[in-house]
């Protein structure tokens, strides 16, 4: 059998291509980025004419995917967990419209917040929207279950939420490929009003959705993905969700027969399966990456025959990702332990790359802000958030995509003047433009600095929608031409840049400063690529 060594993200991408994908939509976000990157680099995708351009944000991605589904073809959309907040409006309603072509929504959660602002659990969104959720245990299942996801989506006419977490997304293993399925032809929905959510139609469809959702619990296509294995004697039961199964088996593979195990990979859960586990147990340990969702279900107020253990009673830590040691402890086993980390080891937080334009911007901005007073720099999500760390220590907010602009507006409304918003070019076109329109309309006295490195940097240098468009976007939104400035953040321009920032900061109206210098990572990469190209043509 043909096998490839793939990250969980890449397994999902390859599976979608093999399962007849026609369109892939996404905005970069760790740990989901590699799904789109793989499809963009894939010669198979190119040969099959699969649509695979980055979208401006997760909402536009979700909507475009729904549009492709409307036209009868298979679409996938991928995002990090917090991206699903951005796409939530479209996502929740896509459950009510239902789908035509198969639609898979991949949400990559980041418990322990390796590269995120929270560790929200996307399975909640599945329940909220009343759609099936699949949660693969390993890379091979990530591949195989994408086929299931598309099939379920088309069979039940619903979007399917495909939930993974960081460790699966970014861990590599050998994956066996299946035979390729051809793409769907374009076909319109059989009911022309299916996607028209006027109240009368929405009410009818929502009612149908609630009944389908309950039916899904016992449908074999979902339920068969949840495996129940009975132990030898009455005793301890363990319910695992997704990759938690691996941490369990890492600890008990030699004597798995001592435990009753329900390994969950699909939701909504079949209640009878849970009951049949509970019948054989005095206590049930629930192991889930993320929130205690199943655990909260089981922890009833009235039925107390079985003791439930998990994150809510402290058997497992309430936050953070699981690992073999945490699971060992929860099972009452002795966890391995090497030596302590010696005191000589220091923290090494991420930092700006040598020669980064954001750093030169912050050098200038910090000196000007020292004159203006503390607590006035609202920033955003991206490499430039590192301005919060030494030596700059000057970022006062990092909340969600675009919030720098709008929080600065609110703060100046409250009387804080001057106030600065620092946002990246890609974050600006993701969710900053609408905030800027608000600022234009009331001429908020904020200084918006768009630190334009012409890429989506933090996630590794994906194409930014803002390239070559920032001036025209700002002017189009109504920014005053006299207060739209461009600076080049380089050490040699330090004094000049400070003067521009100082002038605009003191302006009692809206200013926008475009601090523009290409990301040094992408710049050096394209230089190398150019050199290689030259070499080739030279030979």
């Amino acid at each position: 059998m043909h096998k490839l060594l793939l990250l969980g993200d890449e397994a999902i991408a390859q599976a979608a291509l093999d399962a007849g994908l026609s369109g892939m939509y996404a905005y970069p976000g760790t740990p989901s980025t590699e799904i789109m990157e793989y499809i963009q680099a894939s010669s198979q995708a190119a040969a099959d004419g699969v649509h695979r351009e980055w979208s401006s944000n997760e909402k536009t991605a979700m909507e475009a995917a729904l549009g492709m589904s409307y036209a009868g073809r298979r679409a996938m959309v991928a995002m990090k967990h917090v991206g699903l907040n951005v796409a939530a409006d479209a996502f929740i309603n896509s459950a009510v419209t239902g789908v035509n072509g198969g639609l898979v929504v991949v949400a990559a959660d980041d418990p322990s917040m390796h590269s995120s602002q929270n560790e929200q659990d996307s399975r909640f969104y599945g329940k909220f929207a009343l759609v099936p959720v699949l949660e693969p245990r390993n890379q091979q299942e990530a591949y195989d279950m994408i086929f299931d996801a598309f099939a379920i989506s088309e069979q039940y006419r619903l979007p399917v939420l495909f939930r993974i977490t960081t460790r699966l997304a970014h861990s590599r293993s050998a994956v066996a490929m299946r035979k390729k399925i051809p793409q769907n032809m374009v076909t319109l929905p059989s009911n022309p009003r299916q996607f028209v959510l006027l109240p009368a139609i929405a009410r009818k469809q929502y009612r149908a959705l609630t009944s389908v959702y309950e039916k899904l619990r016992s449908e074999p296509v979902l339920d068969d993905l949840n495996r129940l294995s009975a132990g030898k004697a009455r005793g301890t039961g363990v319910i695992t969700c997704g990759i938690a199964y691996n941490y369990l088996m890492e600890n008990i593979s030699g004597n798995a027969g001592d435990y009753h195990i329900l390994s969950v990979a699909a939701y909504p859960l079949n209640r009878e399966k849970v009951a049949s586990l509970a019948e054989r147990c005095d206590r049930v340990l629930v192991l889930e990456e993320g929130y205690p969702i199943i655990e909260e279900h089981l922890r009833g107020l009235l039925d107390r025959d079985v003791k439930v253990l998990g994150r809510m009673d402290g058997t497992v830590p309430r936050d953070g990702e699981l690992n073999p040691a945490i699971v060992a402890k929860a099972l009452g086993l002795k966890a391995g332990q090497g030596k302590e980390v010696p005191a000589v080891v220091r923290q090494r937080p991420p930092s700006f790359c040598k020669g980064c334009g954001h750093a030169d911007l912050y050098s200038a901005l910090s000196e000007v802000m020292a004159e203006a007073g503390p607590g006035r720099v609202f920033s955003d999500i991206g490499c430039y958030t590192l301005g919060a760390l030494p030596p700059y220590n000057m970022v006062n907010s990092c909340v969600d995509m675009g919030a720098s602009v709008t929080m600065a507006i609110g703060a100046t409304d409250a009387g804080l003047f001057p106030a600065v918003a620092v946002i990246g070019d890609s974050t600006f076109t993701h969710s900053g433009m609408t905030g800027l329109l608000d600022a234009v309309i009331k001429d908020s006295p904020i200084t918006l600095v768009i630190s334009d490195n012409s890429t989506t940097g933090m996630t590794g240098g994906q194409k930014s929608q803002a390239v070559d468009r920032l001036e025209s976007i700002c002017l189009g939104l109504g920014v005053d031409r006299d207060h739209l400035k461009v600076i080049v953040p380089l050490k040699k321009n330090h004094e000049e840049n400070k003067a521009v920032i100082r002038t605009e900061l003191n302006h009692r109206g809206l200013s926008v400063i475009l601090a523009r210098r290409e990301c040094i990572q992408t710049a050096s990469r394209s230089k190398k690529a150019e050199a290689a190209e030259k070499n080739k043509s030279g030979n």
Partner: protein
Amino acid sequence: MKCDIILAGVGGQGILSIAATIGLAAVEQNLFLKQAEVHGMSQRGGDVQSHLRLSDREIFSDLIPHGGADLIISVEPMEALRYLPWLSEGGWLVTNSVPFVNIPDYPEPEEVIAELGRAGNTIVLDADGIARDLGSARSGNMVILGAASSFISMPFGSLEDAVRKMFGRKGEDIVEVNLKALRAGRDAAAVR
């Protein structure tokens, strides 16, 4: 057979090239493999690690259990120490001796080296220097891999083949340089 390896370094130092080389060799040897990587924010100059697991049996966890690693391979000396809680009793630690200083409170390099001396089975070598002497300053990572090669339960030839595959696209010169670095690392470790 099982071999659990923690690869350590600083974002941007290219520990994944070491992981990819071992991974290629393991696939050729028909071993099971899992390799957890760090992508995202920490890649910007923060501490990064990769858990690489090889076995002739099915591997469950993507993460190596604490106290379970047979080997730590590090391209930076202080980073090697960060993962001691994962090293098994009797496990080996192979590290570059050249510090990567991008934080203001980096400890005295001698303190780090002294601490490495107390860590158990340790091989500390100036991989950058060895690579420079070979005329290819950028193949330090292959020197370190070579130095660690005797603790990875695979024939040395399989690592050589993997290097040929990894760098084949870049031309015969690059392949040769990296093979030289790999062998120089192995020889430097053997002298100790």
